[in-house]
């Protein structure tokens, strides 16, 4: 029982924020992708972007990274959340530890993982001390794109799993235990309880976590640059390159729009895949 305008009133503050601090500057920037300095409409910036030799690489790298990181991260976070829920003692301490990376910026995370992987880094020190290697190995050399990729994936998983974890833990806390009990009584194994009850009931949180995570994944930048240098161009690093090194705001805007478009496409996909049927809401 509510007036039709109530939802809109509730959205108003957020919408105002978005309009002033996002939509307005966004429009100005997006406009640049389609118009020249003199105001003529053109698609040449998109052509310039698409025909640049790094564009495809950056696009593919970005997608590959997201593909390698996000699903694993979701699975890991879900697993960690269930571990936490099964704990009695030490739960708070473990959760706190697991949420620590939340407070670590991507710049700092890049720094930390660089310290591990670089040639005179901890990993080499460790291997050296163990006598596995004589000479430090240049893990991050440009020829080892695979290792660089792996290092970035590790760092991203380390850094950003807690984002997903926190959302899921909070979501799991709201699932009444009676449903798990009912499932158990009806013969569901631990795994079945998880897939048939916990996961479906967690859908809203899963959806949120996944969307946010995917979007952030398309914007990976600092960690990639820290570990990969220019070896693994991604869309976001190209935005920076075009904006601040090549000083071409038009093409940079075009790149940004590409990121936006992919993000929205994936968002819609996830929203659709994890939708909750209308009657099935609590």
């Amino acid at each position, binding site marked *: 029982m509510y007036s039709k305008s109530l939802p809109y009133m509730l959205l108003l503050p957020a919408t105002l924020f978005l309009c002033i601090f996002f939509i307005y500057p966004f429009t100005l920037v997006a406009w640049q992708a389609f118009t020249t300095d003199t105001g003529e409409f053109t698609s040449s910036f998109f052509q310039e972007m698409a025909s640049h030799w790094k564009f495809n690489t950056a696009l593919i790298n970005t997608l590959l990274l997201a593909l390698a990181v996000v699903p694993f991260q979701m699975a890991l976070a879900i697993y960690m959340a269930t571990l936490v829920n099964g704990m009695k003692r030490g739960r708070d301490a473990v959760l706190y530890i697991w949420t620590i990376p939340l407070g670590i910026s991507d710049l700092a995370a890049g720094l930390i993982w660089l310290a591990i992987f670089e040639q005179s880094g901890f990993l080499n020190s460790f291997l050296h001390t163990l006598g596995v290697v004589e000479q430090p190995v240049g893990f991050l050399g440009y020829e080892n794109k695979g290792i660089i990729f792996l290092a970035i994936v590790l760092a991203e998983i380390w850094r950003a799993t807690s984002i997903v974890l926190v959302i899921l833990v909070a979501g799991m806390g709201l699932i009444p235990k009676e449903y798990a009990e*009912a499932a*158990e009584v009806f013969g569901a194994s631990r795994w079945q309880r998880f897939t048939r009850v916990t996961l479906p009931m967690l859908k809203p949180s899963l959806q949120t976590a996944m969307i946010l995570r995917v979007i952030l994944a398309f914007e990976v930048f600092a960690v990639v640059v820290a570990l990969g240098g220019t070896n693994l161009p991604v869309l976001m690093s190209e935005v920076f390159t075009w904006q601040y090194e090549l000083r071409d705001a038009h093409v940079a805007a075009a790149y940004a729009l590409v990121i936006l478009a992919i993000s929205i496409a994936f968002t819609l996909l996830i929203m659709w895949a994890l939708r909750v049927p209308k009657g099935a809401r609590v």
Partner: protein
Amino acid sequence: MAEIKIKQVAKQYGSTHALHSIDLTIADQEFLVLLGASGCGKTTLLRIVAGLETATSGEVWIGDRRVDQLPPRDRGIAMVFQNYAVFPHLTVYENIAFGLRMAKLPQPEVDKRVNRTAELMHIEALLQRYSGQLSGGQRQRVAVARALATEPEVLLMDEPLSNLDALLRMEMRAELKTVLAESKTTTIYVTHDQVEAMSMADRIAIMNKGEIVQAASAVEVYRNPAAHFVGSFIGNPPMNFLDATPAGDGFWNVGGVRVSGPAGGQAKLRFGIRPEDIRVHPTGSVNASTEQQPVFSATVRILEPLGSHLLASCKIDDQMLRVVLDSDDPIKSGDELQWSPVSDRVRWFDPGSELAIASV
């Protein structure tokens, strides 16, 4: 073979004793009804049998296996939860099919069973709905159907019909009874409805404050309550109790009338009579002093019409007495009522131990 043995099971929540040492054996295929006051531990007991709660001490056996350490799914049970626990994310169909899918039944079989139980519960029209789109009673029936569909060896039902109307409940009762007898299921059934208990139970177990006070057939429990509590708890209205003081020679003074009773040395007893075992004498038809049987008199205070009957609450010596009258009895509040107990229906209780005294 699914006999259930509950041995000295106790349960504490922190400092709350929900169950004191419970001993109870439910025979294979028996239909046991658990009756007891709100908060006496019925649900707790069911949950311990189901394996959803760990007993603080004691053992639970199902068939030949001690099941204390087994997870619920290995106990061969199904349960109807007091608060239904119908999965909100599944349709009614999928809710009912849940246990069957867990058992990996082939789809045609699932379909058959779901449709059969849904029909039994009169929810066949709702199969595509979600639980959020059901009324309370409909949701409850889904919970029952879900449990029935799995055809378990042991079925635990926690007030499964509490939200159904009388008509439907009567129907369900009959059908449940038939179905469970056919499938040879051992059942523990919690209810607050005594008619339900009486009409369905092979045996009724009466619980009070975490203990089982009596476990016997319906008639036995009704006629020969093992304790004051049982008498006062079973029967609607419940048994009347009047204080009795010794009058010598195995006679007792009850409400000013000399009544023959147990010959014992107790300083006090309690005289129990069920309202429907009271014969009211039409006004002026008896003379208390000349009658063979004891004749009591009581003052009518409140009259409650109950449709088919009239319930009169009366006073004898400041003690309360309820009498069931025919609904067209022309009695009025304030009238003096003369009555006698049906003689072999009088029961005596020890006010100290609250237990019944073996009939004389």
